[in-house]
């Protein structure tokens, strides 16, 4: 880290954010057709989760294997609003009970359940997207961290929560759409989200939200709070003895990660046009952890590149060699854990950045600040448990 302590980002980080912005706002929309751009939009929804995991896992040292839960909660809140709008009485004339979502009609439910009713309002929905997962994460976090449960135990419990929510959603078909999820989402306040131009608008909206989250993450990291998180990860007892309430900081990190995931989930419902339990359970939750691990668990920007790369690889590999994809993903897990615990950002910071710096310095014979893409004071070795 540079000697002065910037409030928000040092020079090389600003440069990194700028490069990412150019890539997402200019290069990708110009190079890709709408179908591929929509795929990128889908991948970026996972980037929100990966970003949350950087704070929660990379800085806070709390590995959550249940981020799909929050992704799902956010996504389902948004999908419920869109679904209600799509099942207006005019659209659902042919049902035996017009005006309720189609899957309820199929399951012989004749009245809109009470907890669905507030989702007629967009402002309530937006509040719910943020507050429901935040509250849920707060309860789980408070129950666990106040009793000093952490590490592997916490990971297993979050995994169990993910399993419970999936089974619940699949089992309560009449209220949630079951295994198929909520499909056929059409309009947002009368604005059709399905045509190509709407997809492009939604993509830019999502990128804007993503940068909002990146700024929040950067701010957290450079604030005193971020440094306490890192200290807590490395020597929890010492931080506790210094008089800090370790549990509260952990709850905060976990809740912020949950909120980011939920925003990602809401974006998913908007961009992809459906939501299903296959994005809630254990398998997707662990997959989201691997995006972060590949990108670098300590790097805010690395997590986003990791998400994009793994998903591009997944799409192209599973399109051409469906047999090999799982071998590839499994191998990637093992390779990242064994050889590159700091992921792509670690490789960049250790090998590429020094080379670049040397090149720049020899050309301009000027010694600028040499802080890496990953902050060295943060990336010091493999993160402790």
């Amino acid at each position, binding site marked *: 880290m540079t000697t002065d302590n910037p409030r928000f980002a040092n020079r090389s980080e600003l440069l990194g954010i700028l490069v990412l912005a150019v890539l997402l706002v200019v290069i990708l929309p110009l190079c890709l057709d709408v179908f591929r751009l929509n795929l990128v939009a889908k991948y970026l929804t996972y980037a929100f989760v990966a970003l949350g995991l950087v704070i929660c896992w990379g800085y806070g040292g709390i590995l959550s294997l249940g981020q799909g839960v929050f992704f799902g909660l956010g996504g389902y809140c948004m999908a419920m609003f869109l679904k209600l709008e799509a099942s207006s009485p005019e659209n659902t004339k042919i049902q035996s009970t017009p005006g309720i979502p189609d899957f309820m009609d199929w399951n012989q439910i004749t009245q809109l359940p009470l907890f669905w009713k507030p989702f007629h309002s967009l402002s309530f929905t937006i509040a719910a997207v943020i507050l429901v997962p935040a509250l849920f994460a707060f309860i789980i976090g408070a129950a*666990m961290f106040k009793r000093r449960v952490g590490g592997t135990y916490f990971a297993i419990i979050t995994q169990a929560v993910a399993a419970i929510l999936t089974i619940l959603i699949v089992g309560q078909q009449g209220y949630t759409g079951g295994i198929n999820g909520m499909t056929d989402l059409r309009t947002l306040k009368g604005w059709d989200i399905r045509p190509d131009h709407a997809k492009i608008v939604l993509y830019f909206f999502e990128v804007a939200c993503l940068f909002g989250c990146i700024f929040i993450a950067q701010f957290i990291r450079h604030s005193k709070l971020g440094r306490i998180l890192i200290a807590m990860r490395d020597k929890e007892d010492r931080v506790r003895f210094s008089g800090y309430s370790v549990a509260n900081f952990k709850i905060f990190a976990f809740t912020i990660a949950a909120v980011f995931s939920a925003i990602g989930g809401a974006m998913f419902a908007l961009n992809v046009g459906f939501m299903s339990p296959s994005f809630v359970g254990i398998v997707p939750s662990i997959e989201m952890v691997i995006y972060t691990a590949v990108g670098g668990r300590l790097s805010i920007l690395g997590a986003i590149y990791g998400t994009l790369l793994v998903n591009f690889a997944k799409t192209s590999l599973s399109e051409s060699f469906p047999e090999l994809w799982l071998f590839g993903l499994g191998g990637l897990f093992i390779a990242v854990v064994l050889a590159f615990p700091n992921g792509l950002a670690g490789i960049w910071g250790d090998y590429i950045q020094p080379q670049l710096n040397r090149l720049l310095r020899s050309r301009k014979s000027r010694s600028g600040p040499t802080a890496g893409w990953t902050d060295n004071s943060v990336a010091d070795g493999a993160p402790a448990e």
Partner: protein
Amino acid sequence: MFGDYSIGDLGSIFVMQGFAGLILFSVYVLMALGLAIIFGQMGVINMAHGEFMILGAYVTWMTSNFFQSYLPGLFSGYFFLAMILAFLASGALGMLVEWVLIRHLYRRPLDTLLATWGLSLMLQQAYRSIFGAREVGVELPQWMLGSMHVSDSIEVPINGVFVMALTVLITMAVAYIMYKSRWGRQVRAVVQNRVMAGAVGINTEKVDRYTFALGCGIAGVAGSAFTMIGSTGPTSGQLYIVDTFLVVVFGGAASLLGTIASAFSISQTQSTLEFFMSGSMAKVLTLLAVVGILMLRPQGLFALKVRK
């Protein structure tokens, strides 16, 4: 939910569901024993444990096919050989995995979780490529079919009794190995103080490797038992892994008695609830209860002190 049944009916329901729960209990115990040894004694989270179990199931399936086509006369006894082969196959794979992967990660327990998850994905794909994506079922020998007639409304399937007897036997064997044998003493010494155990001449690396192999081998036997109550597919193991982890954590890691008690309570709760509501809601309620209790008592039922 009890209103529609008479007292006698309820009694029969509880006995029958209790018995169905005992079979689930057997699979949980066998799975959880291996996991508890690996997690409790070594601190390694083995997410690929379900895949080791499924390997045992596939070995059992292959043995049964082999006996059917080449030794039909001995078919009634194939299961015992299959169990031994399943133990050996899963144990050997476990030993290989420990040597290639796990031993590099002992200091980073959360990372073993990710690495073994990767391993489980690869194993699943390997099973799919080798055995096909379709689920396979094992044909049981004649003497295991049918059920024992206890009373008019209570019948007990013979294969269930067999699986339970097997579970009891294996549990006792594991308890003997861990608490009475010389090797078990070495394992416990390494767990308590690795450096000191090494200093008095215990080969800690070897102990680690064989402990891991033993845990995986028991998972293989669990797979053998599993073929009697369910069909085997590449992803069948994954369905059990979270439940089994909850069993281990709920019982309190490093406590064999706790593992058994928690496997019993979880499987019985689930099986009894299943009669009164849909299977998915029974599962949700059971898991919720377990997670709720773990939040109040994070150290599990029987452990002395497990913090972090």
